[in-house]
């Protein structure tokens, strides 16, 4: 989206297609017009992601003032409307408050409201609930899911919490060391993972019916991103690893039923996906 500084960030290859257009080929100005208007983002820590010295009303209204050319008053009215949409109580009185005067959950709602402001086609939410209390997490997630349906927009949810995605997502792409290792429709993934890493993740979710057992954990540590292992990045931690895993990078291939019947939307980047899903 062009929000990282380049350098030091860089995109060595590939393309970012949005509505058929490669965003990497756009000018900065074209990209800027897409940001916020067509693609909006929600960040992890709302306290540091909101400007501490500007009122939330100002920060919300800014979307309308910049992208729609609205005046101050109009923008403020819109800001109040948005705050009501995300169920912030007493929105009218609180519109001039500053981020530090809100609770964590309320702040994250403001982030969501900001992303929703111009009814974008796509929202990218980067760990939107990690910084929140567990009870508040659920509320915020529900709100996000509800609004996503209501506005009928795309939602890319980045999270490490597989429990969170189950209710919200349709499709999951599991990533490891910066690469997609498995893709699947959400329920299929939970039922039949086709990659050892996914399996490990699922087994490490605490479950009520397994009380008393020690919680499973994938052995080893997450990879150092400066020293990603050769071959399959997961090989030092993988229980199924063979010699080939240390030398050859497994490509992301379509996953099929045992009889070869196609499984839509499924893919795995494991040399031994067959054994993993069917074995």
């Amino acid at each position: 989206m062009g929000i990282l500084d380049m350098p030091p960030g860089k995109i060595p290859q590939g393309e970012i297609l949005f509505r058929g257009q490669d965003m990497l080929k756009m000018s900065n100005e074209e990209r800027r017009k897409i940001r916020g208007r067509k693609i909006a983002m929600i960040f992890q820590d709302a306290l540091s992601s909101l400007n501490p010295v500007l009122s939330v009303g100002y920060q919300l209204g800014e979307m309308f003032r910049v992208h729609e050319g609205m005046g101050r008053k109009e923008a403020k009215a819109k800001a109040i409307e948005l705050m009501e949409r995300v169920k912030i109580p007493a929105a009218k009185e609180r519109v001039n408050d500053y981020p530090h005067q809100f609770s964590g959950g309320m702040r994250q709602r403001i982030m969501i409201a900001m992303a929703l402001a111009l009814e974008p086609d796509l929202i990218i939410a980067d760990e939107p609930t990690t910084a929140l209390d567990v009870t508040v997490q659920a509320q915020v997630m529900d709100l996000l899911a509800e609004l996503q349906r209501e506005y009928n927009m795309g939602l890319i949810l980045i999270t490490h919490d597989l429990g969170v995605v189950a209710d919200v997502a349709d499709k999951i792409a599991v990533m490891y060391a910066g690469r997609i290792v498995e893709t699947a429709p959400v329920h299929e993934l939970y039922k039949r993972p086709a990659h050892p890493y996914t399996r490990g993740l699922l087994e490490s979710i605490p479950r009520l019916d397994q009380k008393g057992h020690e919680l499973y954990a994938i052995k080893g540590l997450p990879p150092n991103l400066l020293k990603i292992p050769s071959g399959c990045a997961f090989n030092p931690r993988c229980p199924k690893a063979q010699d080939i895993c240390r030398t050859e990078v497994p490509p992301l291939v379509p996953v099929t039923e045992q009889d070869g019947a196609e499984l839509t939307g499924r893919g795995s980047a494991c040399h031994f996906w067959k054994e993993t899903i069917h074995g």
Partner: protein
Amino acid sequence: MGRYVARRLLQMIPVFIGTTLLIFLMVNVLPGDPVRALWGDKPPDPAQVAQIKHDRGLDLPLWEQYLHYMKGLFQGDFGNTIAGNRPILDEITQAFPVSMRLAVMAWTFELVVGITLGVFAGIRRGRIVDNTVTIFTLLVISVPIFVVGLLFQLYMGNEWQWITPTVQDSEDMGQLVVPALVLGMVGLAYVARLTRTSIAENRSSDYIRTAVAKGLPRKRIVTRHLLRNSLIPVVTYLGTDIGTLMGGAVITEGIFNVTGVGNLLFTSLARREGAVIVGIVTVLVLVYLLASLLVDLLYAVLDPRIRYA
């Protein structure tokens, strides 16, 4: 807010009394006798010396002198000079506007040029602009101000004749430009460095990332989001610096012969006119205290997380 201001104003009273007392004592332990100095090189007449001392209350014990002085001060009477017996208040009110003008001009340089340089250096960190600013400010900070002053005077005044080497008329703003530049130079360098660090630090903050993700134009991000947060430490510096500029112009005023407070302070010291020194310092302390109160109030305006009760 009102209560906070009232409390701060009340707090000024002990600070005020303390500083005047200190200065009063320090001036009195200075070697040299202002009354004897009236005779210059000639031997003074002991009877006359005693007479003058008695008339001016200089033969009283120190604490009584101080009480007298403070009593006068609260009635707006700063006393009279020993040489010439002129009201000290007149001397101060003559010199003050000149220094004030000089300080405000120097301060404006610091503010405008310092912040501009700092912002550009901070945004383009590690590039040519940044390196140039860093080296320039380091140079300015490490070279003593009288060297800069004398160089300016030598080249602009004598060699190229852009200006008159010394200020002829301290009321003329135009003539004060170069002295103000010299005076504000060091502060300018500090402001630039402070701004640069602050901008560079805030630039990679989360809320700037958010501002970018919102699709705001670059200019708006810098002016509305980045600058406001980055200027908070700079404001503190600029606020306290106005006091320093007013009192710290002794050297600059000396070089360019500006007839301001610094000059008056210098000549009074040379003549051991204690009451004048105490008077000037008293006014400067007041300026200082008020400036720092203003800074604290401005702080709350810039940063809503700070609330005074």
